[in-house]
């Protein structure tokens, strides 16, 4: 296994990861908070700045690398995942972070996203989901809810949206989590978890675009509704939510259902969260109801699923080592000569 470069630098602070570039997101954009949380956790992960690379595609979120005092590439639309794959294959010791948006990595770059996940490169994919195209000034995105009225859908959008966590699970991602810009503590935890996972970490971050899709997630993020609508997952703990922590989710066979605690059910009857359980994860990622519908499940946040599988770059290095051990180090002269030669005098 190739360990990511260990700490060689002196103790750093969040400031060390910021640079002098003026941050150019709209005032109030959720991206600011995400930038701040990333800069806050990076000093804790013990990796020298020069060994961190942030790769992004195109979109508002993709300006991210410019504001980081690490190595970075702001690339082309949808391809950050593929660029990061090549970089990680070539340089397994680097800590590679991909910053992308819902349009970037689920629409134009959807193909690369699923392949990155199945191959399991040891990278962190931060998907800033704002359910809108911000940079092009407000068109519906592949995560926008149905019937969304935008500049490109004045009569409402017809597209059924992606469920990003379910998509990631379908692509056999080895780490799937969800967080939100408005909960710095939770976001920091999730960023640290994503980084700690050896393999492709898929972290969806609900991000408010206050210009073109303001309040898209406020039902999950605002104090008044958060407790009722957001379900925070904790390993080994029952699924409990509600302002009074009086509601829970239990599994009735394969069917999840909401129950009231104290009314015939107690915490022992509830679904106990287990990140390692692939089958439960399949149900969990499907708790994706419209929060404005009459009967609906709360939206889960936290780590849905984590499993271990060899990362692509480790397998690649191992294969090269094994092949070399078996065949001996390559000899170019022998190769150029081949098996059959003849002399002309």
């Amino acid at each position, binding site marked *: 296994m190739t360990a990511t470069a260990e700490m060689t630098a002196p103790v750093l602070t969040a400031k060390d990861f910021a640079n002098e570039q003026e941050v150019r997101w709209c005032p109030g954009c959720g991206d600011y908070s995400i930038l701040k949380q990333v800069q806050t956790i990076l000093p804790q992960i013990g990796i020298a700045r020069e060994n961190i690379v942030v790769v992004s595609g195109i979109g508002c979120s993709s300006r991210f690398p410019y504001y980081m005092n690490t190595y970075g590439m702001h690339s082309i639309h949808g391809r950050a995942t593929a660029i990061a794959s090549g970089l990680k294959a*070539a340089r397994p010791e680097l800590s590679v972070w991909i910053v992308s948006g819902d349009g970037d990595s689920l629409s134009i770059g959807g193909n690369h996203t699923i392949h990155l996940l199945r191959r399991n490169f040891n990278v962190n994919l931060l998907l800033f989901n704002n359910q809108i195209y911000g940079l092009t000034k407000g068109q519906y995105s592949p995560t926008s809810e149905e019937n969304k009225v935008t500049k490109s859908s004045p009569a409402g959008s017809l597209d059924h949206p992606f469920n990003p966590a379910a998509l990631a699970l379908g692509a056999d991602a080895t780490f799937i989590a969800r967080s939100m810009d408005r909960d710095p503590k939770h976001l920091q935890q999730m960023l640290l978890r994503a980084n700690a996972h050896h393999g492709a970490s898929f972290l969806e971050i609900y991000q408010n675009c206050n210009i073109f899709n303001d309040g898209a997630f406020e039902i999950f993020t605002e104090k008044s509704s958060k407790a009722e609508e957001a379900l925070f997952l904790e390993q080994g703990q029952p699924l409990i939510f509600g302002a009074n922590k009086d509601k829970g989710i239990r599994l009735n066979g394969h069917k999840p259902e909401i129950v009231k605690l104290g009314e015939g059910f107690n915490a022992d009857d509830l679904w106990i969260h287990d990140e390692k359980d692939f089958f439960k994860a399949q149900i969990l990622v499907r708790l994706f109801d419209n929060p404005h519908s009459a009967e609906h499940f709360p939206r889960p946040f936290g780590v849905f699923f984590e499993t271990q599988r060899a990362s692509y770059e480790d397998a*690649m290095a191992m294969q090269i080592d094994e092949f070399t051990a078996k065949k001996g180090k390559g000899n170019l002269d022998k190769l150029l000569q081949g098996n059959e030669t003849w002399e002309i005098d």
Partner: protein
Amino acid sequence: MSVPTQVVEDVVIKFAGDSGDGMQLTGTQFTNNTALIGNDLSTFPDYPAEIRAPLGTVAGVSGFQVHFSSQRVYTPGDSCDVLVAMNAAALKVNIKTTKKGGIIILNLDGFDSKNLRLAGYADGVNPLNDDSLQGFEVYKIDVTKLTREALTDISGLGVKEKDRAKNMFVLGFIYWLYNRDLQTTIAFLEDKFGKKPDIFNSNVLALKAGYNYGDTIEAFTTRYKVEKAKLPSGKYRSITGNTAVAYGLLAASEQSGLPLFLGTYPITPATDILHDLSKFKNFGVKTFQAEDEIAGITSAIGASYGGSLGITTTSGPGMALKGEAMGLAVILEIPLVIINIQRGGPSTGLPTKTEQSDLFQAYYGRNGECPMPIVSASTPSDCFDAVFEAVRIAVQHMTPVIFLSDGYIANGAEPWKFPQTKDLKKIEVSFKKELAEGETKLRPYKRDEKGVRPWIVPGTAGLEHRIGGLEKEDETGNVSYDSENHQIMVKNREAKVNNIADYIPLQTLDSGPEQGDVLVLGWGSTYGAIKSAVAELQGKGKSVAHAHLRYVRPFPKNLGEMMKNYKQVLIPEINNGQLIKIIKAEYLVNAKGYNKIKGTPISRAELVGAIEELF
């Protein structure tokens, strides 16, 4: 009976049959055997795009042409001396290009009424019975029957499997006809089928039966022999263009000290380069079969950014998909080699047929002002040197480079006087590791005297910086939308590519007078045809010279001057006239074109005609 042997100088054989008849393997085996006896040679495999094209039809004919000689050989030959036709369709397709008086060897079984019908012969017409083969030396052999008879003792195989050895019977017979040794092919069969004794035995028995058939049957009154060719002295092997590309890349990786990373997606006719490179893991080569063409190139960009030698291989349709990413590499100014094995287009076009029609795409096929150097290869073995040069330019000038080959030289083979590593040039590469003296702040886009920026890879402490696809400020590389700056940067990037002309050799003549009536200017795979056509006309006393471009962008500095030394310039291309338009625009010369767009190489004879018309 002992048959007398006649020494001949120059022979073209075409093996043709159904795409399931194993003609490519037969041709390759004959080629290797020919190479080993020291003949000069050139091959032209030509096969349908479908893996199993409709059986017995004209569309399903697969052919392999080998031209071998005791003289120098530059093309696979315009027409063949010997045609082996396994069925009626193979005869129908190839009779036009078989020399009058030539030998035609027919597999009788392939001329039954069904095969005749599938080949599109009219009812009741059989070329074996009418006079259409008059003037040829025709031998009808019941290959199927003879092969089955030879394999009667093999009990483990059914008839269908036994019939697969038919091609070996034919090969054995041709070996007899040309006085060859069977050993190379037996060794090959051992390697391939050694673990399947029945299949191995059936192939060897069929091969020997074919050979012995020549000995026993009294129909053939002469055997032939081609003496060793008078090639420059040295050690030779046979090589195809695609293998030469793979070897050239590997050599460039070793000589530059940069680990090789190939990001690619399978596409005809480029895939063999992936096949070859994926075997070189013990050289540390990393091959990545990406999810699509775009991920092929962008993963290579990621690897280059990390300090590897990033390579992507493709053909025309893949080039189209890679366009945006090439632009990224241009604006990032990082090394990358994009290999395009051209085929007939547009769109999916003619996947297995050759064409030189992606030159415009290489020159202009991207958004914005997006210049990229272009290097082309002219013969199978030249692919080695040309791709080595493409790498050198990419890493020393911090630019993506397009390397152009095509299906004809990619699959064609020729003898190669292979180099020793000690004779290969080193490719000097340096990474920027720290700020220079007096430099207080990193300026990642500050250029050296060649106009080239430094290569700084992640992991270099103290030089952390950000790069991207947005326009950058001169020197600092910071994002800039300043209009003056944009013009400066466009000019900088262009100058960097133009400056490469100072670091490539001047154009030389391949043959002919330094001043005269006609200069034939070519690029890429037309080399052999031009060389032999020009030689023929020079032999007739014509004042004609041949220059062949390797560097297509930028052009060698003396090219304009060179063209002025001739009354006329002829530019033959396997396209609708691309280099010619670029040359005209660049140098205002009144060049003439000779263009063929039929998915096949230009022949020597037609080119002789085209040049003669200029006199």
